[in-house]
């Protein structure tokens, strides 16, 4: 209960001001396409130079918390996922916004984020030593099987058929091979200098999700100027709370999956949202409603990606290993004040660590409050005329892609992928499995190669990849997941639906 003792530190005037600044700034920056949580936190590091250690970390903790949730805003309203964590949110969230339920979608996303986030931070507070050993249990072979588990999601994710889902997943896997291979040292498919560093996930995300929509808006906007003006429905906040708490299954699955996967260094944050979305879809009696603006989709995705925030810091705080890019930036924020993370951190610098963790706790609540305040107002974005909207989204897409590496190359990649995706969508392919392939490809490949190299030097590949209970557990889930997809496919040949995805 030590964290309660330091709770007061968060509420001193300066610290609370910084907490508010971090939360509001984080929400705004998180909602800006292209500014991922990692980049937002990195942008704030220079401001912490002049602050006391705990003040700097309060700012960073609050900013980290709220950028993850802020990403949902552009995902829901503009269909631009701010970071890989928000991909799953677009699937149902944006469809809701198009139906005029933007306010509702934003409200439930912020509430689900806060609940998942609080749970994750409590895990960090109470179970850190236990979780640290769990984080280390994932070696190359386990990470490989985990990535394969992610691949099995591809077929069933948001496409008109399993085959098309798998095909777009394969395109994503191929795109992931472009660039320098860190393990064998080979240069692959570098046909243009823009892709010499490989395809960066953020510009790819922006292009694949936003550009097809921009083209569609321009195309429609010309034919009938004032057709179908969306009526944005008001949605009382109380109803949003009732809605979230009545969807207990999605909330529980999202929170649990986010907490568990978030813990795994290097993988968690990127796929937690998608895996949670897929799992709640498979376990829901209303699985056909997913993808058509079903609140459960938003709840599962958003509770998962915020639940990941707390556990993702466990490897950093206990083992001094930054498990994610954002954790690496936070490590910099600690080092600049001469604070070394590790088991001794909690005993040596309790006056720094606990306010930091508390700031994430309070930050979750503040983020939810501010999010709910702006939700009703922000949802009016859906009423903006199509032509204007298309221009704004295009502008944001270019800005977001450029800001990742200050490079026009990323903008070209974004534009080329977006244009290609527009035509693929016409044929019933979907962006989500493609992005998943792009994210999982390097994880699966690198871990397989590393595992194979270790195996060849030691016990042989069969023994390496097929021993240990964790490997078998993951293999079992992979088999179950594939079996379930085949069974669903045979039961209801769902080739026809999803016309609305092309809207």
């Amino acid at each position, binding site marked *: 209960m030590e964290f309660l003792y330091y709770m007061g530190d968060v509420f001193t005037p300066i610290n609370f001001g910084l907490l508010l600044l971090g939360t509001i700034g984080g929400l705004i920056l998180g909602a800006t396409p292209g500014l991922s949580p990692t980049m937002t936190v990195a942008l704030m590091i220079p401001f912490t130079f002049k602050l006391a250690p705990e003040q700097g970390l309060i700012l960073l903790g609050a900013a980290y918390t709220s950028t993850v949730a802020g990403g949902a805003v552009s995902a829901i309203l503009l269909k631009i996922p701010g970071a890989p964590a928000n991909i799953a949110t677009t699937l149902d969230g944006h469809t809701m916004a198009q139906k005029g339920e933007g306010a509702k979608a934003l409200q439930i996303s912020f509430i689900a984020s806060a609940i998942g986030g609080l749970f994750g931070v409590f895990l960090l507070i109470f179970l850190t030593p236990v979780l640290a050993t769990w984080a280390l249990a994932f070696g190359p072979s386990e990470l490989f099987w985990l990535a394969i588990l992610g691949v099995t999601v591809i077929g069933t994710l948001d496409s008109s058929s399993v085959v098309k889902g798998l095909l777009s997943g394969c395109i994503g896997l191929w795109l992931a091979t472009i660039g320098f291979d860190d393990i064998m040292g080979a240069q692959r498919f570098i046909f243009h200098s823009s892709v010499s560093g490989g395809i960066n996930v953020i510009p790819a995300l922006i292009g694949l999700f936003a550009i097809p929509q921009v083209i569609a808006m321009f195309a429609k906007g010309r034919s009938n100027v004032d057709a179908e003006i969306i009526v944005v429905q008001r949605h009382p906040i109380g109803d949003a709370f009732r809605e979230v708490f009545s969807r207990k299954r999605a909330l529980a699955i999202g929170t649990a999956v986010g907490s568990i996967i978030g813990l795994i260094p290097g993988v968690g944050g990127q796929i937690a949202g998608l895996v949670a979305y897929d799992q709640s879809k498979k376990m829901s009696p209303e699985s056909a409603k997913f993808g058509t603006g079903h609140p459960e989709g938003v709840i599962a995705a958003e509770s998962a990606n915020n639940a990941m925030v707390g556990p993702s810091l466990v490897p950093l705080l206990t083992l001094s290993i930054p498990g994610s890019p954002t954790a690496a930036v936070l490590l*910099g924020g600690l080092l600049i*004040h*001469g604070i070394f993370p590790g088991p001794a951190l909690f005993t040596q610098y309790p006056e720094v660590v606990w306010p930091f963790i508390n700031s994430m706790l309070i930050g979750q609540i503040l983020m939810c409050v501010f999010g709910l305040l702006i939700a009703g107002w922000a949802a009016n974005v859906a009423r903006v005329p199509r032509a204007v909207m298309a221009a704004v989204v295009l502008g944001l897409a270019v800005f977001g892609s450029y800001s990742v590496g200050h490079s026009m190359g990323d903008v070209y990649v974004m534009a080329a992928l977006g244009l290609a995706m527009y035509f693929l969508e016409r044929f019933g392919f979907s962006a989500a499995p493609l992005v998943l392939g792009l994210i999982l490809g390097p994880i699966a490949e690198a871990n397989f190669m590393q595992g194979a190299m270790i195996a060849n030097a030691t016990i042989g590949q069969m023994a390496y990849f097929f021993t240990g209970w964790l490997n078998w557990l993951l293999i079992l889930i992979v088999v179950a997941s594939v079996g379930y997809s085949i069974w669903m496919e045979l039961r209801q040949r769902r080739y026809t639906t999803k016309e609305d995805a092309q809207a």
Partner: protein
Amino acid sequence: MKKWIAGAALALTAMTGSAMAEGHGDYPERPIMLMVSYGAGGATDFQARIVTMTAGNEDALQMPVAILNKAGAGGRVGWNWLAQAEADGYTMGAYNVPHFIAQSIEGGVDYSTDSFEPIANWGADPAVFVVGADSEFNSMADVIAYATANPGGLTFSGAGLFVGHHIAALQLEKAAGVELAYIPNNAGGAGAMQAVIAGDVLGGVNNLSDAFRAREAGSVKILGVFDLERNAFIDDVPTMIEQGFDIDNASVNYRGVMVPAGTPQPIIDHLAAIVPTMFENGRVASRMAAGGSPLLVMNRAEVQEMWAQRQVTLEALLADL
């Protein structure tokens, strides 16, 4: 009125023109950009932000330095970009030796040591050999004894190919005369360290600064330093030479500032005179020490010599690959 504005504009152009002609007397007139070829939060980025934080001071450049991250392909993306960047003195880049020299020898990139002009060096982070805290190995002799008994069976991690860790691994293999299994990690030094702590591999090459922190956290033992002398941060750890391996400092990760070749000589001279003093600032030194990052300030001439030496050593070492 129009005439007056035109006249003023003309006068202004003439003034700036003459200033440029007279050897860039007013340099720098605007903030300077420092390209870092690794992502935000990495060791190079973190240190670059610290050593440039006093750039705006009266006794330094009198203009702030802005960090620009261009990450990708182990630094190749950023250095490729810098080699083509405008050589006007407002674009600088951070170098990592031996990384960029080894990459240019390997080929497939648009730069070599001739593409850049060094300004000054700020840090030197030697590679060290680490094993898990509960490992049976207590010295490099134990490690090599195991490797001799199990040829090719000693797995050890490092941060990728053609980086300091890889160079250190090659040197160790050559000096000990045994076959080792170097496992490059795609998640950089942090991923390589995690593999050691989790026991995925038997040992690893890693940065001294990161290994120092990991040892403070009680997760690893440090068995040897790939440098000519012991390091102040871990003065109880012997060098490889002390343990009987003929390994020099070729793998030490030097970090510093350079500009694209073709930058006007007066600007290079100006920077070369001021930047090292900026690195020696007391505030910089205390921040670097707090973060466990070894500071090593070298002037332009010393860096030129170091680059030339590395070019020769690395060519010889990588020729066997």
